[in-house]
């Protein structure tokens, strides 16, 4: 099937929003433009609390864009504008006068390429905490230790906390970035293809970590790898050309999707 034929078959964005339990975040009718080019069309989905939600789809379908809108990182791009609502509990994230600092405190982000600061490991993790609070030395030590433990990297770095963060291997750096994000105890962690720059062993470690993390945090992960989504997530949303084609429990999506398009993607017909 050619791309053009597929275009005609795209269903409108789904509004089927059933999840078990509460939604941490509601995304409602989000449209987004880069300049005049529309990148997201009427996207709606719930993000379930303490679950891992993954966003899959071919390149350029808007998953990263959607993810970055959740913590308002798209504000860094001047030509970007959007309409619609994203709500987390009482806070409307997309409000014009929203407090970006506290939004981003509650919604952390891990990036595609590990980006530790050119500081020591300790300072990397402590950075976020010191931004928002005034901890004492002991309190900070314990927070750093706790975060590094939770990120499953404590054993490897406990004896060299004052080495540069950039001196770690790729996988370790990514775990450091995760530790950095969870140090400020966000409610949600957004992950934008966190394993794409890592080797398989490091990837496995991160996936295991994600499964641990979901006990305390809500995780939204964008991934290129369907197998990763299948392994790791509870809910999956399939996006195509800026639309949320299907959103459902992961088992359902990967075994018996409702949409034809989803099925074609899962079975590798395109993307």
């Amino acid at each position: 099937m050619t791309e053009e034929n597929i275009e005609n078959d795209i269903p409108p964005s789904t509004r089927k929003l059933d999840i078990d339990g509460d939604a941490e975040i509601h995304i409602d009718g989000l449209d987004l433009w880069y300049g005049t080019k529309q990148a997201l069309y009427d996207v709606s989905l719930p993000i379930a609390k303490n679950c891992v939600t993954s966003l899959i789809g071919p390149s350029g379908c808007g998953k990263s864009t959607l993810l970055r809108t959740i913590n308002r990182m798209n504000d860094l791009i001047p030509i970007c504008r959007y309409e619609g609502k994203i709500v987390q509990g009482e806070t409307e994230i997309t409000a014009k006068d929203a407090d970006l600092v506290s939004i981003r405190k509650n919604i952390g982000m891990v990036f595609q390429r590990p980006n530790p600061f050119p500081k020591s490991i300790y300072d990397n993790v402590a950075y976020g905490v010191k931004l928002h609070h005034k901890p004492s030395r002991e309190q900070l030590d314990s927070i750093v230790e706790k975060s590094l433990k939770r990120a499953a990297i404590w054993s490897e770095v406990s004896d060299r906390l004052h080495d540069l963060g950039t001196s770690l291997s790729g996988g370790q750096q990514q775990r450091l970035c995760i530790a950095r994000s969870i140090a400020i105890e966000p409610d949600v962690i957004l992950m934008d293809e966190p394993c794409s720059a890592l080797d398989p062993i490091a990837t496995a470690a991160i996936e295991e970590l994600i499964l641990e993390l979901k006990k305390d945090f809500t995780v939204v992960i964008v991934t290129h790898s369907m197998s990763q989504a299948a392994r790791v997530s509870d809910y999956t949303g399939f996006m195509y050309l800026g639309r949320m084609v299907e959103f459902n429990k992961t088992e359902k999506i990967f075994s018996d999707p409702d949409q034809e398009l989803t099925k074609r993607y899962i079975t590798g017909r395109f993307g």
Partner: protein
Amino acid sequence: MKEIDKLPVRNRKGREFIEKVGSGGLALTSIIGLVFLLILVYQIAKPTIIDGEEGEIVAATEFLPISDYILKWDNPSVDEDGNLISEPIIIQLAWDDENGSHEHEIEITVIPQRNVKENIQLNENGVDTNEVTVGKKTKFFIYSTLSTPVSVHQISGPTPAANETGYPQVNTFVIQSDVSTVFSNGISIEESMAIISWCLLMVMILVYIFPNEKIIQPIASISKNHQIIRWISLVPFLFFILYEITVIRFFIVLNCFIGLRMLANLSEGIFRLSNQMKPLNDRILLKHSIVNRDGLMLWAKLFFLVSTFFIPLNVHIPFLTERYQDIFQPYSSGIRSAFYGTFWVMGIAMVMAIPVSIGAAIYLEEYAKPTRLTKLIQALITNLAGVPSIVFGLFGLAIFVREGGFGLGFGPSIFAAGLTMGVMAMPIIVLAAQEALRSVPRSIRESAYGIGCTRWQVTKDHVLPSAMPGMMTGTILAMSRIVGEAAPLLVVGAFGAVLFDPEPFAALTDGNINFTVIPIQIYAWTAEPGHEWHAMAAAASIALIAVMISMNSIAIILREYYRRRLNS
């Protein structure tokens, strides 16, 4: 409750505040640069507006009941018949008292006789007169009994030290220029030659843009002799050798050269077309058959534009091209010798520096294997570019100027100065040329090698034309930087006051080797006491900056031209 929220919280409002203050502060630092620039520009421009009599009458006190202020004009403001030579001299007195501020204007007429005096009285009731008549070179006074100071300010007319023609006048710009057409004073042979050369260029440009049947035919008839025309185009350069070079002659020669070259190329193109039995009235065909059409058109347009200012319009700036330094009348000084000096020093520097620098750059980029020698040369170039300019001056002093030891003994002459500046410009030009060469995509070289070119052929025919815009731009920018450098020339021995045209090759011919350049002239005039000299220094600064701006503009125009050509 999250664990972390049990910690004391940093004040959110405080962070917002710091954010605002921070970005405000940063914006402020950026504006400060602008403020510096504006102050700088103002302080350089202000002295060039001439002001006349300025001062203050001290307040009268009980020890000094009458305070006086001396005035004197050296030259009359009216002629024998009582007609004003120039603007009337008007001074304004201003003072404050308990009733508020007062101002009073007095017109002063200076007559050709001497020793005619009329004093001005100033008391609580005001000034006693509106007009005074005094003789030239005669002191006269303002007497004030006021207990507040009175400011004296000349609003119009010639300054007290002005010459017989009433120059300079208050509130005029120090650099005078006038535009006249070349016909206004009658025509000499040289001027008619200038007009002819200018017209030739104009005609050729028009022919190139609009090749018309009527013009093509007569050219076609002589097109067989295009080679001869090419040789003829070199004849005007003889002019340079036989006669002294002035600005007008420079343009005559170059206009003729370019015009004849255009003619030669055009006839060659026509010749070839007619040999191939192609029609001559096909414009596009004609345009494409002319060798080096774009290059010639660029230079032709450039020279036409510039010579328009000199030949038909005859823009005349005596400050630049006529006057030398005038000790007695600072305002009548000009920078002619400095201007020519700069021109010659830059010329020699360019001739010396450009081939060597570009050669070195080509060697380093295209030919050299990364041996230790190459790395050494590269490191040396990068470090030479950062050496203070005065060290180059010392080098020039010991090597070019001096006789003993390693010295070549050219003396403190333009030749030595040119060589020194060339040495100074070298690292900069090499670096710029290297950048240009590096920006040429590898595919060009590879495809040229692929068809079997030798390395020099690849460089000369493929890489250089691509890199040429960057190289020319870099070279011209380097030159414009060098123009403003004074320190090395100070060491080499430029004079602060030169009252004749510089002789560029005097070092070789045992002529008078004294010379000066514009920055040195500014330096010398700044160091002189008296604000007239400062005004002249400011004017010379403006001239220097104008030279630099024009060089930069040429560089930018060339860069844009080549960029359009590469992209089209």
